[in-house]
Every structure is written in C-alpha cells, then in structure tokens.
C-alpha cells in the first residue's frame, strides 16, 4: 500500500505539514521519531489495514515547513491541534515513537478531547538525572546503530544504516539528517524536559506504553515515570531495542491493534 502524500497548510501557510496517509477506518495519527528517515514504514503499513493512518512530518522535516515560526513545544502542540482541524479530525488515536511520543502526549494532555486512545512507544519528554536518555540528536553515524537497535547486525539495522550509493545522495542524506535533527532539537534542546510532567495528569485517553526491554536509547525505567503520571496506563515490555516498531513491525502493530479495538 503506497501512502498518499499531500501538503496541509495551517496559519495561512506559515506552517505546512506534509502528511502521508493510507487506509480506512477510525482515524489514527502517527508522530515520528528522530531517526525515522522515511515517513512511512512497515509498522504503519500494517496499521493502515485497520485504520485511516495519517502520518504528518514534523515542521522542518521532510517537506513540512514553518518550524522557524514555532516558539516551543506549546506552539508545536497548538500547530498539531490546528492540523487535526485541517484534516477534519475531531478525535483520533494518537501513536508516537520517542520524540513523536512526546508530541502525542503533549497533544493528549493539552487537548484531552482530541485523543481517543494513546499509544506511546519509548516516549521522550521526562527526565531523570540518574538515567538520562541518550543524546540521540548528536550521536555520530558510526555510534548510532549500537544504541538504536537491539541487534545492530540484523537485516533491518543494516538496511537502516546503509549509506546511499552516490556521493550526491550521501551529501543530500546528510543535509536531510541535519535538517531533521535541527528541527526536532528546537523542542528538546538541551534536555527533553519541557514541562510535560506537569501536564500528563490531564491525559484522559486510555494509554498503552510500548517498550523494548533492551532499549539503550531511552531506558525502561522511564516507563515507571509514565505510568505514575498517566493513571491506568498499561505497559507492554517486548523483546527489542529502541527501534522496536521497526525491529518487529508485525508484533508491535498487532499489540497496538488489540489495544485500540
């Protein structure tokens, strides 16, 4: 299934989202993480069999524009709420990975009526001095795979890490990566603790936390923090690393579907 891509402007075009969409059913909005180079993935492919999946790229990433007009996480969350209006969505299942989990949780906390159910995969947004999450924004390419993947030698990890063939493509990929990380850095630099812990009690949507038991980027201890702050949040710990949904797209998508239905 090829997702359909379109540009959805808000604020008279000051911010424009590139939104990938596929599938039919109840609306599900997916928020990307830092190291998802492509906006689409087998995990989303699978979810699109049951849901109308909308995957907007963050402003400043992969064709979405206007990040320079956004001041902070609050402003970003307002922009996403306005995007839901523009997409004609009253309430949706919100799913996000790492930074995307943070974005989804912010939206669910600020606008509880917009979130039907919330699925957070190794979400960012809380901070513990004794267990800092890895500084994924700055890790050099040769140090990343060992942190992101449970098995850096796996086929999925290899496919992810393989550099493009030509020098031009390599250069373009590097600039693309810097632009993507730069856009996201704006909302989490230098420490990804921007007040979410004071807002999470507002979340009303039933919440599922998904975590890889070998997550070296975002330690599993954070799961407790999330569970403590979102009442009734369920936790599923799966064999896997930080890139759980890309390591086991079928198994994780199945869990998400079970939780949503």
């Amino acid at each position, binding site marked *: 299934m090829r997702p359909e891509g379109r540009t959805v402007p808000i604020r008279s075009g000051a911010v424009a989202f590139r939104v990938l969409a596929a599938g039919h059913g109840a609306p599900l909005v997916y928020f990307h993480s830092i190291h998802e180079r492509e906006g689409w993935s087998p995990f989303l492919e699978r979810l699109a069999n049951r849901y109308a999946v909308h995957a907007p790229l963050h402003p400043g990433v992969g064709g979405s524009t206007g990040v320079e007009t956004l001041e902070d996480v609050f402003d970003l969350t307002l922009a996403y709420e306005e995007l839901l209006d523009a997409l004609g969505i009253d309430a949706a299942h919100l799913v996000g990975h790492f930074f995307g989990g943070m974005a989804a949780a912010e939206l669910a906390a600020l606008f509880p009526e917009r979130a039907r159910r919330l699925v957070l995969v190794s979400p960012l947004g809380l901070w513990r001095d004794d267990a800092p999450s890895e*500084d994924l*924004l700055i890790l050099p390419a040769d140090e990343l795979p060992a942190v992101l993947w449970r098995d850096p030698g796996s086929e999925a990890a290899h496919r992810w890490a393989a550099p493009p063939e030509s020098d031009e493509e390599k250069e373009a990929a590097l600039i693309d990566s810097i*632009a*993507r990380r*730069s*856009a996201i*850095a*704006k909302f989490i*630099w*230098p420490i990804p603790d921007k007040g979410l812990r004071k807002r999470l009690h507002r979340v009303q949507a039933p919440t599922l936390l998904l975590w890889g038991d070998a997550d070296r980027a975002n330690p599993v201890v954070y799961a407790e923090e999330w569970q403590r702050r979102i009442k009734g949040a369920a936790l599923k710990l799966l064999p896997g690393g930080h890139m759980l949904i890309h390591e086991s797209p079928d198994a994780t998508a199945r869990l998400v579907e079970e939780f949503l239905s």
Partner: protein
Amino acid sequence: MKVCFFHLMPYRFLPDDFEQRYRSVWVDVPHSLFDPEKAGRLYHEFLDELEFAEQAGFDGLCVNEHHNNAYGLMPSPNLMAAALTRRTSRAAIVVLGNSLAAYNPPLRVAEEFAMLDLLSQGRLVAGFPVGTSMDMNFAYGIDPATLRARYYEAHDLVMQAWTRPEVFAFNGRYTQVRYVNIWPQPLQKPHPPVWIPGGGSVETWEWTAKLDYVYCYLSYYGYKRGKATMDGFWEAIARLGADDNPYRAGFLQLVCVADTDAEAERLYFEHVHYFYQKCLNVWEGFAEAPGYRTVKTLLTGTKPQVGSLARKIRQSLTWPTYLESGYVIAGSPATVRQQLTECIRSLRVGHLMVLLQIGSMPKDLVLHNTRLFAREVMPHVRDLWPGYKDRWWPSGAPAGNGP
C-alpha cells in the same frame, strides 16, 4: 597593515596520552585533569606574554571566549581585557569577543564593553561572535535552531543601547527590557569598532558586509585553507558594491619564528603538535549541533574546524606536513616573511592576527617567538596596503604602535 597578538590561553599540562584516553578537549573534558595551582600561574604567564607583545610593538592584543575548553581558559575575555588595560597604554584591546546570545540580558555586553572602552581610554575593539557550537549549544545549552536569531537580536539591542540618546523600551522575541539605559556609555563615538569573528557562514559574510563591520576568520588551518572562506567574504563585499579596503578583513595565522628553518622545527614542533593533537581533539558529536549552521551554509560545503576533519589532520604528524599545508608558518625570518606576505596578499587582510603562543609553548619560548617576530618580520609587512584607511581601528589606540 595592523598586526595583533592573539592569545587562546591553553592549558599546557594535558597528559601525554590525552588524545588516546579522552574523546574531547572541549565540552566534556574532565576537570580532574585541571590543576588550579598551575592554572593560576598560567594566567599570569599569559598576561605577561600579552603585555610583552605591546612592548615589542604589536598594534593590538586579542583575547577570546571559550567554555568547557582545555585550550581556551577564557570563559570571560573581559576579565583578561580589564587586566590588560591597567598595564598597557598603546595597543588596541581586541576582544573577539563576547558571544552575545550567551548573555542574559545581552545588555551585560554593552555595559562591560563600555567599561573596557573607558578603562582603556578608547582602545577597545568590540568583537561579537555567534560563538562556536561547543560553547553555545553544548556548554551553555542554547538551542542551535534559535542561536543565530538570538545573536542578531542581541546585537541590535547592544548597538541601540550604545547609540540611542533616549531611554527606550526593547520588545524583542528573546529579550524584553522596559527601560534600556546603560551606564556607563562607551568613550568611542558613535561606538567602538565592531569586528565579527566568523567560521565561514554565508549569512555572517553578508550581514557583516552590510553593516560595514570587520570580518575576522579565526582559522587554525592556515592561509591556504582559509582562502576559500576569505574569497567568499570578498565576493559578498563585491555583491554589495562596497569598496575592497583590506582593513575590512582580519585573519588568524599560527606563526613560529627561529634563527633558521631547522631551529624552528627543533624549538616548536612539540608545541605545535600538542595543539593539533590534543587541543583540536573534539568528539565528532560535539563538533556541530544540528542546526548550528543553516542549510544554506551547509550547501556551500564548508566543514567545521573540529570533529572528523581535525581527526584526519591529526594523522598528518610531521613538521613538513604542518608547513606544506600552511597550517603553521614557521622557519627563519626570511621564510616567515615570504609566506606571511603571501598570506596577507592572497587573503587581502589588513588586520593580521598571529598566534605566537601555540599549544604547550612555555613563556620563555613565547617571548622568544614574539621578539623575533616583532624584530625580524613585522617591520616587513607593516607597509603593505598603502593608501587604504583603517576605519575600524579604535580611536584611542595610536596607529602604528612602534617599539
């Protein structure tokens, strides 16, 4: 031609195996390596060297700002500049500079620079760097995506604080001050000359040119590599239709002078090696936070000065490599004169800054290098660029500070 003596104030006592054992000289270099007793003496050594440079006839003395950095022990260059105002009387005090976005509110810079201008009786050059990514994004935690916007806004605030006659309100995106009214005001009118140290950002060339400031390229990789950057600056000047006065430009060059070429290698190699091996050993992850440079600049292909490039350079370990690449101009007075003239002419630089204290160089050797440079080299480059007027020199510093 103006010649300035530049000091980085490096910690000289990093262990021999530093670069094998530690990933970075900057940001997370452990301060268990720092000996306060030794460092206290170093500051006085460094100030002695700067003061000696004035006596030797240098036109200006340059200090700069770094944080979490074992090769730059000057988180506050203003303190060093203040100390210099008391023991010097002729040389320009060139503070290169205060990284505006790091000060909250940035009015602090307007105030301290005004104090320095008064203390030095009008000898201050006000340098406003954006600041390196290591300093600003990592050591000071400023978000890379907004760093430049903060910098430009802070610059506007400082310049207005120096030039507007009335008390005014400043309603910025990053700084809001209801009553801007700094006491004291600088001595130089309308304001001290402004020099902008840059690392090759397209935006900085254009902005500097537009505002008619001096652009300084503080490179550790010498005049041969620096040419592309300075050419870029001069092209920006030409696009704006401004004149090609060489005093619009400054450039930093590492220089070692000895009686003979062979003697230069014997005296200086280990210290130059210390600088490139240890002082430029910055972990790639710290070399540049994402967003520190704009996509527009990334597309020009200029690489950061530290990180993987520096690592490659560290593999070229020999004295001839340092020299052939032009990173260091070193040798007999005749050798240095010839290459330095080429450097000045090819980059079209009116404000030459030389780094004569390099890496682990101890004071007696620094004074030797400084003395030889001042006596055997400086007089021969003084008269380059006749007929051009230096409009960016502080009014309280005499032109041509002869010995």
